[in-house]
Structures are given as structure tokens and as C-alpha cells.
């Protein structure tokens, strides 16, 4: 398994677990109050630490174990895989943008819109990385 594929697996699992925790423990009862935005912002700090920490840890371990592999340039197959993932995730991002526009029109609370934005970004990113992992395994 290449270094980039490993990093993709780590990103996928870390995103899933970190944002799974975020949405499972978010205090939904206060979403329509100003405190809802603060609660979301406060929870994003540990989420970012989990994701960045996991990716940094695996990167460091990979550099120590196989330094040559981590410096290999992305080749045409990997670029093709990355384009496919980004292409599909783009449609989800657009859907999320439209959902946020409607949320503004319908006067959804600031915290509601914040969580909708976060969900949009997380789902698009999970799909992007997931599609790329699928093509890494199946081939393109």
C-alpha cells in the first residue's frame, strides 16, 4: 500500500470518528440560541486536533519506516484517482451550498447554518476520500 493510500485511510477513519463524535455529542437543544455557535466552535477544536494529530502521526511513522516512499511524486494514476474523487465530491458541495442558501432564506439559526455547512464539508470530504480509496483498491 502506498503512502498516499495509507494517508487516505487515516483521513477517512479520522474524519468519520471525529465528526461522528461532533454530531453525536452536539447540544442540539441549544441550536436556535446564540450559544449554539459557540458550542459548535468549541467542539471543532478537539475535532481538528484528532484529525491533524492522526495524519501527522502516520506521516511521521511512514517517514521513519520508509522515507523514500513518502517523497515519491504523485504519478498519472494517482492524479486520475484524485480527480475522480474530487469530481464526485464537487456535486455534494454544490448541493450543500444550495441547502445553505435555502437555510438563509428560511431564517434558520446561525448555529443551524453552521452545522449544515460543517455537514456539507464533512460529507463531501468523506465521499472524496472514499471514492479515491475505492479506486485505489479497484483500479482505474
Amino acid at each position: 500500500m502506498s503512502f498516499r493510500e495509507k494517508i487516505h485511510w487515516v483521513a477517512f477513519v479520522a474524519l468519520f470518528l471525529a465528526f461522528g463524535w461532533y454530531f453525536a455529542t452536539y447540544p442540539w437543544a441549544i441550536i436556535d440560541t446564540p450559544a449554539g455557535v459557540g458550542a459548535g466552535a468549541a467542539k471543532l477544536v478537539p475535532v481538528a486536533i484528532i484529525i491533524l494529530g492522526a495524519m501527522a502521526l502516520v506521516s511521521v511513522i511512514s517517514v521513519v519506516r520508509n522515507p523514500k516512499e513518502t517523497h515519491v511524486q504523485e504519478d498519472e494514476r494517482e492524479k486520475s484517482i484524485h480527480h475522480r474523487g474530487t469530481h464526485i465530491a464537487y456535486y455534494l458541495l454544490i448541493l450543500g451550498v444550495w441547502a445553505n442558501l435555502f437555510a438563509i432564506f428560511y431564517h434558520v439559526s446561525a448555529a443551524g447554518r453552521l452545522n449544515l455547512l460543517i455537514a456539507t464539508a464533512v460529507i463531501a470530504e468523506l465521499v472524496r476520500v472514499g471514492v479515491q480509496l475505492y479506486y485505489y483498491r479497484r483500479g482505474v
Partner: protein
Amino acid sequence: MLPFDNDIRTLRFLAGEVTQAELGDAAGVTRQTIAAIEQGKYSPSLEVAMRIARHFGKRVDDVFVWREI
């Protein structure tokens, strides 16, 4: 499934067990990409196909053989 087969594994053997990493370096791709091409999981660009063929002193259609479906 790709509409062509390839003889890269055989050519690597005949060239003295050239490794996938060595061939990848010669063709400008990673070891994993050479493995994917060998297994028929990736259709390389014409440039990479020509680099692989040239590495073995062969023509592209000696390395990649069209399969009638």
C-alpha cells in the same frame, strides 16, 4: 476489465527480474502503478506505455496486446 493484456511480468523476468520499482523509476510512475498495470487494473497513458516498452527494447504492441472481446 481492460480490452488488452500485457506481458510486463514476463518481460521483467526475461530482463533479469527487473523489479516493479525499477521499472516504475524508468517509466516515471510508482511501483504501485506498475503493479496495477500488470494486473490489468490501470490503463497507462501512451507516454508511460512507450517508456515501459522502450525500457525493454520493445515496441508498444509487443508489450500490450489488444484482446478481441
